[in-house]
C-alpha cells in the first residue's frame, strides 16, 4: 500500500493563459518482480501501478499505462489545455494487486 498520499501540483504555465502544468508524485514501491531480496535470496513479488487515469473537471484527459519499468515513487508531468484557476485535477491509479488511490488538486 502506498505509504503517503500522492502529491499533485497544478498551476497555469507561465506565458500562457489556459495551459495548466500538472506534476504528480505517487508513493509506491513499483517492484518489478525481477529483484531479489538480499537477505533471503527470494525474488520480491511484482507490485506496480498499471493504470493512472487523469481527469480535468471530471473529464478524462489522459490515461497512463505503466509497466514494472516505471521507477519507484513514480513522477509524472503533463499539461492540460483549456484550463483555468480553480479547476480540479483528479488522478486515480490502480496497481496489479488491485490496490488503488484517488487524489485531487485545484489549479493555482
Amino acid at each position, binding site marked *: 500500500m502506498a505509504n503517503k498520499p500522492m502529491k499533485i501540483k497544478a498551476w497555469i504555465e507561465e506565458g500562457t493563459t489556459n*495551459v495548466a502544468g500538472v506534476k504528480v508524485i505517487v508513493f509506491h514501491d513499483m517492484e*518489478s518482480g*525481477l*529483484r*531479489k*531480496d*538480499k537477505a533471503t535470496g527470494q525474488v520480491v513479488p511484482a507490485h506496480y501501478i*498499471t*493504470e493512472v*487515469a*487523469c481527469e*480535468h473537471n471530471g*473529464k*478524462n*484527459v*489522459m*490515461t*497512463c*499505462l*505503466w*509497466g*514494472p*519499468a*516505471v*521507477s*519507484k515513487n*513514480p*513522477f*509524472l*508531468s*503533463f*499539461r*492540460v*489545455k*483549456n484550463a483555468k484557476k480553480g479547476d480540479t485535477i483528479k488522478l*486515480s491509479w*490502480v496497481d496489479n494487486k*488491485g490496490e*488503488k488511490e484517488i487524489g485531487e488538486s485545484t489549479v493555482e
Partner: protein
Amino acid sequence: MKQTRRTFLRTTLAASSVAIAVGAGLITPRNVLAAWPKNAFDAKTMDEAMTGIAGSTTAAASNDITVEAPDIAENGAVVSVTIKTTIANVEQMSVLVPKNTNPLCASYILTGNVDSFVTCRIKMRETSDVVAVIKAGGKLFSAKKPVKVTLGGCGG
C-alpha cells in the same frame, strides 16, 4: 440482548450504504484495468512489445519528436524521460527501452485536451536507447536517444 426491530433496521441500513460506497469506488479502476495490455508489457523483445502496444513493428523515424533524457544516467533506477512532439492528432505516446527485460516501460493515451508532452521516470537495466513511439492519425512515428547507464536499475 434481544435484537429489536429498530436496531436490526439500523444496522442493516448502515451496512448496505457502506457496500454501495465501496461498489461505486470500484467502478473506475475496474473499467480501467480491462484495457491494460498485459501481453505488451510482458513482451521480452522490442518487436513483440511494439506489436502489443502499437499494433505494428514499423514506425517512421521522425524529427518532430523530442526525447529528453540524460546522456549519462548514474542510477538506472531513476532515469527522467520527457517526450514531446509537434505532430498533430497524437493518440498515444509510448516509452520503450530495447535492452530492458521487458522493453515497454510506459504508454500514455492522450486526448485532445492535453499537450503532447509527458515526463516520467523509468528504470534502465543497462546502457541503451530510449525509444519514443508515437501514434498519430493511425500512423506510427518514433525517435530515440542513447542513454549511458553506469548502474543498472532492474534486478538486484
